[in-house]
């Protein structure tokens, strides 16, 4: 519903912009309207558009995974005559033909946050290195536990059963950082390490995260390290730990995202460490590239421009680069 409304709105605004034949128009398409990550991205894009003196039109899918909504949004952008657009794809494979259509029509397409499959379907990709983000929290957990890391009992609160890119990249990044041998880099769950105690799906949601952790505690009562796909999941897990009387620091939580509530939870000692990513920077860099037509140099080995991930913790570990909670709060989103 929201996607349709947003799409119709984009079309109306876009049509107005072309009729005026005035300033350059650029677009931004996100997965949803609700996720604070995308809200921040839109804020960054809006500010940048103002600075560059261009018109910005935005659209989003109805829910995470809504490919049809994004296809309609791209079609609207093409007919609105935008110079180019940035997109966070909901389905990194299914959207590719529509993106090809846009590029054939002469549009610059910057893919954000989630790489396309194949990655070179977009003009360029600006994203967080999710594997590295996972690796940072894994290394931090290993360093903090020291000798006890050998006997850790790890619970994973993952995103979804179909294991989207971001899910396995963060998961296997964490495993690599913590020193758990990865069996398949693009699929988790095949690892044989005895320290792995349980996997549960929290869907990135606070309430489902709590339920997942409650079930995990039943299967794995002596857990001492919890990996969470994002900070809402970590907040839900913390509620479960509190109810079980385990919120006394005996269980370590690590997470990824760097949203403001998450960074404050690092400050409060709920989350031990989190990897912060930078949606605002992604969006404003994309707008710069589209308007100027100059794509920044990209390391061909990675295939995408890493917009960076930094570890935020109150207890730094030697050898793992991190920033303080105060710095993290200045850079946080949502």
């Amino acid at each position, binding site marked *: 519903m929201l996607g349709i409304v947003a799409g119709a709105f984009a079309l109306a605004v876009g049509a107005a912009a072309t009729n005026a034949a005035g300033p350059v128009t650029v677009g931004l398409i996100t997965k949803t309207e609700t996720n604070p990550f995308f809200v921040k991205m839109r804020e960054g894009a809006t500010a940048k558009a103002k600075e560059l003196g261009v018109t910005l039109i935005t659209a989003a899918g109805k829910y995470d995974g809504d490919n049809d909504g994004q296809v309609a949004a791209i079609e609207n952008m093409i007919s609105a005559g935008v110079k180019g657009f940035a997109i966070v794809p909901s389905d990194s494979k299914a959207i590719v033909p529509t993106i090809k259509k846009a590029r054939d029509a002469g549009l610059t397409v910057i893919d954000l946050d989630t790489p396309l499959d194949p990655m070179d379907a977009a003009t360029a990709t600006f994203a967080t290195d999710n594997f590295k983000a996972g690796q940072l929290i894994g290394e931090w957990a290993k360093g903090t536990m020291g000798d006890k890391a050998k006997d850790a009992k790890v619970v994973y609160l993952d995103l979804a059963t179909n294991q989207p890119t971001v899910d396995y990249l963060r998961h296997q990044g964490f495993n690599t950082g913590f020193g758990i041998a990865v069996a398949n880099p693009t699929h988790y769950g095949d690892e044989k390490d005895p320290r792995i105690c349980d996997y549960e799906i929290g869907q990135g949601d*606070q309430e489902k995260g709590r339920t997942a952790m409650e079930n995990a505690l039943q299967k794995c009562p002596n857990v001492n390290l919890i990996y969470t796909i994002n900070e809402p999941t970590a907040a*839900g897990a913390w509620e479960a730990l*509190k109810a079980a009387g385990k919120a006394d620091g005996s269980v370590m939580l690590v997470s990824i995202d760097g949203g403001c509530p998450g960074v404050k939870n690092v400050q409060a000692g709920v989350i031990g460490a989190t990897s912060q990513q930078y949606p605002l920077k992604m969006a404003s860099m994309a707008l710069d590239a589209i308007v100027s037509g100059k794509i920044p140099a990209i390391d061909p080995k990675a295939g995408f421009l890493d917009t960076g991930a930094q570890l935020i913790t109150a207890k730094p570990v030697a050898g793992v680069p991190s920033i303080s909670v105060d710095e993290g709060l200045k850079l946080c989103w949502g």
Partner: protein
Amino acid sequence: MNTEQSGRVSAAEFETVLPEGSQTVASFDEEKPGPLRRVQQFLHGFPTTIPFLVLVLGVVFFSSIVGSKFFAPFNLSLVLQQVTIIAVLGIAQTLIILTAGIDLSVGVIMILCSVVMGRTSVVYGVPVIIAFPLGLAVGTACGAINGLIVTILRLPPFIVTLGTWSIFGALNIFYSRSETIRQQDVEAAAPFLQWTGSIIKPYDLIAHALGIEVPWLKGSVLTYGSILMVVLAAVVWYVLNRTAFGRHVYAMGDDPDSARLAGINTSRTLVAVYALAGLVCAVAAWVLIGRIGGVSPQAGQTSNLDSITAVVIGGTSLFGGRGSIVGTLVGALIVGVFRNGLALSGLDVLWQEFTVGILIIVAVTLDQWIRRIAS
């Protein structure tokens, strides 16, 4: 006969029995019902029996395959905590479905109310004594809006609530700015909102108060939210079964035309039902804040469908007029038991979805079969 001779009929004459006439008392056709037919009749009278049986079978099944991890006071009470939100939303949904309607907006009304309660008190610093009733009022108003559109514009509830689902969702994004409020911030500014998440240990409570040790309660943990759910269910049950309003709801769901001809103001009753359902959604919002500690504008994305699932599995007919609040609570518990049991058996989450799907289809098939007795 002598009546023909005299042309007059004596009064006593009417009392005489026609010798050739049937000697039996007037009655309905009564074939001897077969055992299956008798089960059908029994279920028609007591539609909550099947959900109860499924619940018991589910508990027995998972106790035997998962063992003491599942069948423990702690875990069973945990399931109760896990289903509380959906059960409360299910109460709201039952009210609507009894009128042969459906409400797709219950989940988003809940989220909107939790955001109103949380954001107004925590971010804008309004005392919780105002913010909390404001949340309840917003829920009631959302429900009333649904009801008014259904009655005044005469649109199907499915379409109306499909529309308001989006509208209330957009208002939620607008008011919340998609910002999550942390548990610690709610605790500092409005701890009352978290009351529903406070824990009670029945074993300790009874041991302290009465000096009796009830071994099978040892380890069980209840929240005030779960107790609130039971109290709310009892109140709504009373309203539905012991008040004129409640009988009107059932009558309207069964046959709206007859209900109107019988003198029931159906429009007013319908608006009242939707408004009441909205208020119940606001109570669900309170339970939600208690469970997750904070306020998340993105929580509960699928809770509207989950509430319908609980109602249907609980034996309430989607065609209106038949079903019960108790059935819905049992329905919510069935889903909770299967999800928890399957999770503890270590199966992938997709099998939880698979099983819930089967339960829905079986429940509706049974409902259709039972309904055939009425026709």
